[in-house]
């Protein structure tokens, strides 16, 4: 907060000419200072007069009288201050000169020794009173500082106990008001775009706080009684605070601003934490409900499939009956897939809140997925390109598996029956790209984007194969949850390739293991 401090003039009154007002203020201050010195000086002069008279009557010599005056001036400087003491010392000098040096009753001095005595008296008295005033000033400043540190400590302690369920701004404002006995306080919270103020000059200070924030600076009002400073934590301004009161200095305002900034930030992080906790609970609830639902679906499906496949296995059915039993079996399996995919979709939706990231070797991922679809891929050749071997990605294994499974399932379902499927992976420009290629009729250009939408199925595919319309949207969601993307390239001649790109590959080669 070391930037320029701008002097804000004529804050209270909407003054027309700042320069004129300034001069007027300076005059007023000077007059007030002179008036302030008056009582001490008069008292000092009175005492000096009395002592001089007594000394004269008692026929004391110059050195005794000057010692007495010396004492008086030091006492005056101790009680009132330097200027009072200086005034008193000058009067004392006059009295000593007039009554105690030859010729008497004249300001002239005939003996040079008297000159030396008088000069020494005046210089010594000035030095001593100056020193004494300075020491006192230091003691007073120390006391003020101690009081201020105590107040700041109090503020920092009480900031810890602010009520988190209430808005933080008004609490900070009233806390500062309470501890520092300021006249008015205003706080501008830039993140919440909120102004809180208290005291008779609340309106002015609100304006000032806003100005300090937008100019990103420290503003000082006339007489050093009004301050506004920007609140920052780190580099970016978070808001501003404006204060006015008789006992404020820049050295008090800056720590108050820091504490207010910390209090705002603290409240904000508590709020964030609360939101994260709520999101986590929602996610947990959803997973629990979905798990229960999946279980509820799968139990009757298990009974149906057991019965239907059991009927087929027993081999006691007529041809028509076999066909019907096979239909039940087939459709039960379809329904099972639908339930599984809905569950996967929900899991990926939830994963946007929380991914369980780990290092996943790409080749292992591909091999696992191909192994899972062994039944479906029977009789077709599945080629995995060598390029996948050294690649690894950071991701949620379960979700990546679900995504790649959709590509493999899609390739198996919509390609020319019996045609080969190939899977390749490579790292390119910081992305790991997995590609699944199959032969077969191309996807119409109009459909290439839309097939990744939930429940969208291209016109032709609807009649060709049974699908749920969820598969590719799962792959897309999974990629997006990892900050990646999916797309398809499809041509009559070359076939269809689905791409799955994940950011930040960890091109690592496995340590080779010799048998």
């Amino acid at each position, binding site marked *: 907060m070391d930037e320029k401090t701008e002097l804000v003039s004529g804050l209270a009154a909407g003054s027309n000419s700042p320069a004129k007002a300034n001069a007027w203020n300076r005059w007023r201050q000077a007059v007030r200072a002179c008036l302030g010195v008056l009582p001490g000086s008069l008292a000092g002069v009175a005492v000096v007069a009395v002592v001089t008279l007594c000394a004269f009557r008692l026929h004391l010599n110059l050195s005794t009288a000057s010692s007495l005056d010396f004492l008086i001036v030091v006492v005056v400087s101790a009680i009132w201050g330097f200027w009072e003491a200086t005034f008193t010392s000058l009067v004392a000098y006059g009295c000593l000169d007039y009554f105690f040096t030859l010729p008497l009753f004249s300001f002239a001095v005939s003996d040079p020794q008297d000159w030396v005595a008088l000069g020494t008296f005046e210089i010594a008295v000035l030095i001593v009173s100056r020193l004494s005033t300075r020491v006192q000033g230091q003691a007073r400043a120390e006391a003020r500082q101690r009081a201020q540190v105590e107040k700041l400590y109090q503020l920092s302690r009480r900031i810890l106990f602010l009520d988190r369920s209430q808005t933080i701004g008004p609490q900070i404002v009233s806390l500062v008001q309470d501890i520092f006995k300021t006249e008015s306080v205003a706080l501008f919270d830039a993140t919440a775009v909120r102004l809180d103020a208290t005291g008779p000059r609340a309106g002015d200070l609100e304006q000032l706080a806003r100005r300090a924030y937008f100019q990103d600076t420290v503003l000082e009002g006339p007489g050093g009684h009004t301050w506004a400073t920007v609140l920052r934590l780190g580099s970016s301004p978070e808001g501003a605070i404006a204060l006015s009161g008789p006992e404020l200095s820049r050295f008090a305002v800056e720590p108050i601003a820091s504490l207010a900034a910390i209090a705002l930030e603290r409240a904000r992080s508590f709020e964030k934490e609360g939101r994260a906790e709520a999101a986590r609970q929602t996610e947990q609830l959803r997973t629990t409900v979905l798990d229960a639902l999946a279980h509820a679906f799968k139990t009757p499906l298990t009974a149906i499939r057991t019965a239907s496949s059991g009927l087929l296995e027993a081999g006691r059915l007529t041809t028509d009956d076999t066909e019907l039993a096979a239909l039940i079996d087939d459709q039960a399996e379809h329904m099972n897939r639908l339930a599984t995919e809905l569950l996967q979709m929900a899991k990926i939706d939830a994963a946007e809140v929380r991914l369980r990231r780990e290092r996943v070797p790409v080749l292992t991922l591909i091999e696992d997925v191909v192994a899972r679809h062994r039944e479906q891929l029977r009789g077709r*050749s599945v080629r995995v390109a060598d390029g996948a071997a050294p690649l690894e990605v950071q991701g949620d294994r379960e979700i990546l598996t679900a995504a790649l499974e959709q590509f493999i399932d899609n390739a198996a379902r919509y390609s020319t029956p019996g045609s080969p499927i190939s899977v390749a992976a490579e790292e390119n420009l910081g992305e790991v790209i997995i590609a699944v290629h199959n032969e077969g009729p191309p996807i119409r250009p109009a459909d290439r984007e839309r097939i990744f939408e939930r429940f969208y199925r291209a016109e032709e595919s609807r009649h060709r194969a049974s699908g749920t319309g969820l598969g590719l949207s799962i792959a897309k969601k999974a990629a997006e949850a990892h900050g990646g993307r999916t797309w398809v390239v499809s041509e009559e001649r070359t076939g269809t390739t689905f791409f799955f790109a994940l950011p930040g590959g960890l091109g690592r080669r496995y340590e080779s293991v010799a048998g």
Partner: protein
Amino acid sequence: MSQSQGRVLIVDDEVAIRRALRNTLQGMGFLVEEAPSGEAALRLLPEAPYDVVLLDINMPGMGGVRACQEIRRTWPQLGILMLTVRDSEQDKVAALDAGADDYITKPFNVRELAARIRAAVRRSSASRVDPDAEIRIGAIELDPARRLVRKGGELVHLTPKEFDLLHYLMAHAGLPIMHVRLLRAVWGPEYGGELEYLRTFVRQLRKKLETDPAEPAYLLTDSHVGYRFADAKPEPVEEKA
């Protein structure tokens, strides 16, 4: 169907599943009893010599995993097949950790279920067989005494670790072997997390043994769980009508 294929105890809290399974398995020649919970299963088991228990993982009461542990403690030879509902690896691993021989995910095809039951039945009798007896599955022959492997009659050269790995898998043919168990059995008890080791060896074994290493017929992968050597009597699985 005239001769019993084995005695099976079905443990599932869902009546519909128990009924469907009982009728189907009886039709396939198994002797079937049923229990609605793990506690009931533990009461029924001492009453007759069972070969296999079908145990649902998700049941009220003691639950499938604990029931599996209890059963395994008392009947180490009994075949245990866990029925899991979610297709999640944690469940499968939990089941195998608890001592299950195998798992099958609901909903399943009964033909596959029957094949798994038969493999489990075989395992419970196989442990009484001489460990040095020759193992022959499909075209693969393994002679533990002479440490030789043949494929279709021709000698295949394997490194010692490859041989041990194949031997362990073939000795437990048809059942899933978890990565950790495989690593510890072949490499030693201090191993367990070196999955890439295992994958490299399996890849090499596939190159030497499989007709098409990309489409293995013998050395099968159980996603996220482990490996499984093909069943001793591979059932020809035809496509459905």
